[in-house]
């Protein structure tokens, strides 16, 4: 090949300009286009030294761990004004009398328990442990994760295992079919050690996120409260802490049924089954409902009351509002979940000057800032 034969098709001065401003005008000749493409490739190759993996890793871990998050306060105007007045008046009087503050940094009291269908109960939370290895299933546990693998047997398993996650803890497990389940605090999952029937069925109490392994021939069905979810290949969150059951779809497609009512969810849609039995659909930002399983704490314009209900469950603490006005203050927070409750309380008081938390054992009193 003669490497020079297209050289004179190229307006090099034009090319040099284009290389700097990044434009690709439509009137370029083939040869010019080729030269420009080659020049871009040269640039990209020469740039390698500008992208140090060390710096990249530093930046990455910062973004991953701190996620700086948004912490924003939308104090209701009336409350805020009242509190500011009160704060000004009483600051000096109360300051001196404050007792030494307790910190909310206790670990949860109860452990995660696995109740096997045979009647055996295993306490989880220690390092690697093989719990069972027979022809039904092999069960292995790590500190906060359980793994089931189906054994050689093909008999349908009719008895159920139960995983109990107490307040203050979270746990994940991989079922025998490969489905991943994240269980939030104060939740329970009831499931067979292996799936050999026509359907795969599990029951959840509390809150769980499912990432269901697709198996078209064997539908996956989740029972929660009075709702039943039939999975069409999907990641979704079920919250059945209250009389109301909320199902939020993150990806895939989900059929939700409650009695005779049923609806199909698309991603970022939510089905709510109210205590009066009506099933309603609404559009939501799914991450608000699934952030917990990523290890995040995420509330958007949520009343402080609602936030403390979640914190109580997450950290195994009780909250008492000494000033009921504060319950309605709304607050936005989006951070990595701190290891201890005190970390969250500090974040809140840092941006919400009007609130003060007083810790007494496992009880936190929410008070106006004096």
């Amino acid at each position: 090949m003669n490497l020079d034969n297209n050289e004179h098709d190229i307006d090099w001065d034009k090319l040099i300009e284009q290389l700097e401003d990044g434009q690709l005008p439509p009137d370029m000749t083939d040869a010019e286009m080729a030269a420009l493409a080659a020049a871009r490739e040269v640039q990209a190759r020469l740039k390698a030294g500008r992208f140090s993996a060390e710096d990249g890793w530093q930046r990455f871990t910062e973004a991953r761990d701190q996620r700086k998050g948004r912490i924003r306060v939308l104090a209701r105007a009336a409350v805020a004004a009242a509190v500011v007045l009160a704060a000004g008046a009483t600051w000096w009087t109360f300051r001196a009398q404050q007792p030494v503050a307790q910190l909310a940094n206790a670990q949860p009291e109860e452990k995660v328990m696995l109740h096997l269908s045979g009647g055996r109960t295993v306490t989880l939370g220690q390092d690697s442990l093989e719990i069972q290895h027979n022809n039904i299933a092999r069960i292995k546990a790590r500190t906060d994760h359980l793994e089931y693998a189906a054994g050689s047997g093909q008999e349908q398993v009719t008895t159920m295992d139960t995983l109990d996650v107490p307040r203050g803890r979270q746990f994940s497990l991989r079922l025998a079919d490969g489905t991943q389940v994240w269980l939030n605090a104060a939740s329970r999952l009831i499931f067979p050690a292996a799936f050999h029937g026509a359907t795969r069925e599990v029951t959840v109490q509390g809150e769980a996120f499912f990432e269901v392994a697709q198996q078209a021939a064997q539908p996956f069905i989740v029972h929660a409260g009075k709702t039943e979810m039939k999975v069409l290949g999907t990641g979704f969150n079920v919250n059945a802490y209250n009389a109301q059951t909320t199902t939020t779809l993150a990806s895939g497609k989900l059929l939700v049924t409650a009695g005779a009512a049923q609806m199909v969810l698309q991603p970022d849609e939510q089905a709510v089954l109210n205590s009066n039995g009506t099933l309603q659909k609404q559009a939501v930002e799914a991450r608000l409902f699934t952030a917990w399983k990523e290890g995040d704490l995420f509330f958007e314009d949520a009343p402080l009351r609602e936030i403390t209900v979640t914190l109580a469950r997450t950290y195994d603490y009780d909250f008492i509002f000494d000033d009921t006005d504060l319950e309605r203050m709304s607050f936005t927070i989006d951070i990595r979940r701190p290891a201890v409750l005190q970390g969250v309380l500090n974040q809140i008081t840092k941006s919400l000057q009007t609130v003060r938390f007083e810790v007494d054992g496992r009880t936190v009193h929410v008070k106006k800032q004096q």
Partner: protein
Amino acid sequence: MMEINPDYFLLCTGNNERTKWLMHQPGSGEAVSFEEQFRQHYTFLCTVAYYIVEDEDAARDVVQDFFLYCWHKRHIIRITHDFKSYAVRAVKNASLNYLRKSGKTQLEEIHVIEELTRYFPLEDKEEEEQRNRALWAAVSRLPEQRQRIFLMSNRDGLKYKDIAAVLDISVNTVKTQIKLALQFLRKECGWMARMISFIFFLSRF
């Protein structure tokens, strides 16, 4: 949503910050941690993104977002065959999306760039390495001042007028030197001149 394929697993061995996330490729028996995977591919992926977005910071952001995505999906992500080819595809798509969203690039230009991404990087690892070596060897044979100006422009991203100011020469001299450098590299690196053969069909856009 990025595309995820079966066969390649990220295995998790716990759920807390100190956890080592293993990426395991069935068949090869090879398992590397998330961090090792990151360090192994970060630089290369940044050049892939840069080729498309032509902005260093944007390239870093695109690649970082890709790894953050992997991190968040580490429980469930499954990649066929090879992490690298999956990552290249994902980073290319994310870079093109960045261009579309930035609004600074015309749609027609994005089409052209999209076509160009079929040719960089190369699938063949050997040939990819070989091109880099040939390029740097050719750059090292440039006359001293020409080499310096060329690298200031192409590697360090300085504007022509800034190079002119730093070296106290005219902007035209800078442009001429870069032009001569490119013409020289074209002769030295066969692949640069050969690009004409595939570019041909593009001109009809």
